[in-house]
């Protein structure tokens, strides 16, 4: 194709100029990729640290009754809801443990251990001792362990609000990574907690996670659960309701990231179209000859569109490589001595491909401006000049 061939030759004939503009685009795209991926990575680690290894949707009792009866029916109704991943139940209650001269408030969490373990990853977080083997055992968190100064096998007296005292054996210590949990949760079996608080066969909550890629649809899934259950005695909450600040923070980041990318893109378009407009002047002689030889307006315009496309293609590709390099370099540079990174790198292929396509198409579009300008060029003016 002649216009493509001419575009290539024009770009090659001004190597320095071409290299400069390609370099400019590459820098712009690399900034875009670097900033974009950095913010995406930041958001993902923020979201993970807030709601990872935790239920994202919870069903709680409403009103005076602080327990849910006939919960097996609800669990069965919930199971069919699309987008849910794991489901478990819990019977929890406030209690306290004595410590020297004072008492410490705790939250006894009676789990259906196997299913709850899949949500919280409790067994993986046990750093000393072992899992629960009997109804008389509990697991306590790192902070509480340090506070009480207890050891595996010690007996822990748990004081219930009704004044009862029950002795449990400490089977293990866990660390779930969240201070408030490590300090207050005393984990035991569902049945043990039900007996401790006199719930009989009732529970205090159904906990659920959603599919990994649907984290941000938790509110919609929760609404569907509400519909499926249709029970006034319970309410459905999801992480988005409880983390409004986090969400608006994320949104703010996304907006500022988009603004940066928009500005970068706009400068790319301006740069390319102005450089290519200079090319129209530089190559007006050639364009005049081509027109005198009968090149069509369409093909004459295509010369500039192709120049934009080629410049964009090389610039965007180099820019993505550069941006990724920058990101890895930043990651290594900011990593701690043990090798834990400040931020996780998350390679969002959609984002990269989108940036690539957008950079190339805007660079191609930028070629339209000089292309229009080339249409006005009159071959007679060129031929007269000599």
């Amino acid at each position, binding site marked *: 194709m002649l216009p493509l061939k*001419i575009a290539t030759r024009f770009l090659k004939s001004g190597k320095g100029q071409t290299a400069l503009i390609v370099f400019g685009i590459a820098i712009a795209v690399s900034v875009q990729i670097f900033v974009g991926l950095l913010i995406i990575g930041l958001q993902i680690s923020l979201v993970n640290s807030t709601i990872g290894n935790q239920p994202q949707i919870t069903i709680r009792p409403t009103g005076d009754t602080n327990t849910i009866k006939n919960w097996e029916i609800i669990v069965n109704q919930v199971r069919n809801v699309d987008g849910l991943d794991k489901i478990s139940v819990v019977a929890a209650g406030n209690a306290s443990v004595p410590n020297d001269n004072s008492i410490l408030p705790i939250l006894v969490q009676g789990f259906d251990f196997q299913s709850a373990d899949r949500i919280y990853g409790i067994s993986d977080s046990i750093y000393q001792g072992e899992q629960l083997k009997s109804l008389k055992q509990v697991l306590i968190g790192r902070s509480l362990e340090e506070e009480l100064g207890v050891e595996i096998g010690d007996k822990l007296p748990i004081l219930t609000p009704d004044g009862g005292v029950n002795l449990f054996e400490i089977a293990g210590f866990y660390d779930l990574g969240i201070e408030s949990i490590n300090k207050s949760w005393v984990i035991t079996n569902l049945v043990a907690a039900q007996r401790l608080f006199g719930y009989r066969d009732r529970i205090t909550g159904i906990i659920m996670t959603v599919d990994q890629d649907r984290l941000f649809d938790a509110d919609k899934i929760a609404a569907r659960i509400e519909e499926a259950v249709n029970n006034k005695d319970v309410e459905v909450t999801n992480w988005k309701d409880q983390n409004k600040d986090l969400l608006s923070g994320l949104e703010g980041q996304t907006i500022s990231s988009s603004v940066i990318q928009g500005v970068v893109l706009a400068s790319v378009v301006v740069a390319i179209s102005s450089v290519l407009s200079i090319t129209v002047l530089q190559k007006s002689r050639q364009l005049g000859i*081509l027109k*005198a*030889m009968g090149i069509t307006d369409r093909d004459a315009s295509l010369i500039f569109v192709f120049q934009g496309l080629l410049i964009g293609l090389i610039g965007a590709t180099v820019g993505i490589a550069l941006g990724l390099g920058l990101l890895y370099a930043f990651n290594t540079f900011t990593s701690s001595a043990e090798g834990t990174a400040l931020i996780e790198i998350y390679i969002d292929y959609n984002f990269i491909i989108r940036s690539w396509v957008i950079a190339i198409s805007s660079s191609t579009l930028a070629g339209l401006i000089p292309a229009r300008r080339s249409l006005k060029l009159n071959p007679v003016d060129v031929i007269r000049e000599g």
Partner: protein
Amino acid sequence: MITLELSGVNKIYSGAYQNQVLFDINLSFEAKTCSAIVGESGSGKSTLMNIMGILDTPTSGEVTIASNIVSSMNRKQMAEIRNRTIGFVFQFHYLLPEFTVLENVLIPHLIHNRSQSGQVLNRARNLLDIVGIAKLEKRLPTQISGGEQQRTAIARALMNNPSIILADEPTGNLDSVTTQNVCRLFGEIKKEFNTTFIVVTHDRTVASHTDRIVEVRDGRIISDKLNTKIVPQTR
């Protein structure tokens, strides 16, 4: 048969002041003839030439090329006529500096065809051979002499086998020997390809090789005669 005809052509440049350059020009050119347009500098020869080659439009009057009325054509049709029917040779040769000699010759073909067949490539090489620069096909225009550039431009003008060749001072910056060669070349081409030649020149030698001499002064045709003492074409 008449291939090119101008009737009542006027050209007025309207800028800061009005400048009429051509006055009521009526001219027609028979197919397969060779005509010279002569006249002093500034008499309007190039303006006439550009109008004949539909690079420029007359202020009034009509141009007809190969039975097509120019004023009734759109831009695309005009581009097509320029590409297929007309071959230009400009005074300052105007090759594309980014392309080799051979590629320059091929460009008129590539303007209307996506690719070149081996046959087309052979034709381009053959044309370079006719103008005597077959050996230079891989050079860039900046790497050959002025006369060689001129000959490349002639080969390029012939590429699409046009029925009309318009040459504006084709020997303008060539020495007399090379000018003689170019004249002989035009004669050979005319015989071989049945082309109509219209040559603007103020070189008497060139004019003497043609069938007809049209003289222009101040935008008017002051004489138009057949060339009686045609120089025998030496081989």
